[in-house]
């Protein structure tokens, strides 16, 4: 399995943890995924979500920024970023 595929699997795992509100575990695997594939906007977006969900807004913002930097068309990341402005 190459790094990209592994990152993809870790992303899925991260999403699973997120859905179950296990935010610390989600962050751990998503950070691992991000190290294996630093050009995935989706991984940054999901990391941003987890941070936002646990109210770490500063970290959330920087992850969303990275997500839109990698993929300017990722509308969801842009939406979340817009909502965080001024918070």
């Amino acid at each position, binding site marked *: 399995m190459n790094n990209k595929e592994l990152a993809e699997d870790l992303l899925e795992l991260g999403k699973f943890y997120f859905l179950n509100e296990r935010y610390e575990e989600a962050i751990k695997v998503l950070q691992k995924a991000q190290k294996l594939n630093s050009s995935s906007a989706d991984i940054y977006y999901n990391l941003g979500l987890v941070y936002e*969900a646990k109210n770490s807004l500063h970290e959330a913002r920087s992850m969303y920024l990275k997500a839109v930097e990698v993929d300017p068309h990722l509308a969801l990341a842009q939406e979340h970023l817009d909502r965080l402005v001024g918070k």
Partner: protein
Amino acid sequence: MKHFAVIGLGKFGFSVAKTLSEKGCEVLVIDSDEEKVREASNFASQAIQLDATDEDALKKIGIEDIDVAIVSVGENLEASILITLLLKEIGVEEVIAKALTSHHAKVLQKIGADRVIFPEREMGIRVAESLVTPDIIEQIRLSPSYEILEFTVPSNFTGKTLKELAIRTKYKVNVIAIRKKVPYVNDEGESDFKEEINMAPDGEDEISVGDVLVVVGEVKNIDALRKEK
């Protein structure tokens, strides 16, 4: 529904008028600058260009039917004072005036303004408070000693129910709502979360990471609760 008038379309007046309109209120906007009036006519129910220090002009447009008038005339102290005075004389029930200095505020109060606001100062205080205590989301003073406070829960609250935390008995503070972020997968298969508000929390409700508590109580009791972490 109340009828509002916003007099003076600077940045402050403009955003007051726009927000009121967005909330479905009838808003009459007045400014002496034609350009500003035109811009506001996009959302306001009525936008009129006139000199609001002219008593006859104000009467002619039926200003006495307005329930709440916001005087947000920017730099011109004299105009702001005169307009406030005229509005009260004409019989506008509630006049809210924007003050630039504390002297200005005193005068406005003396001549009958029902409420005097300092947008810059108030915003400054809020920004400063939010920097010192970033976990406070909203703070509403009900009176000098009572407030409603919205804050993110400290980590030692998570996993416990309201009953276990015993906030009411320990701190004499009432939890009136819990805001939760609930993760879900949207139609495109992307993860996201939505905010749900529990407006009637009971003892069995459990606090999770990232929750926001809305509490009401005495300021000193709320402060004691917030030190608990």
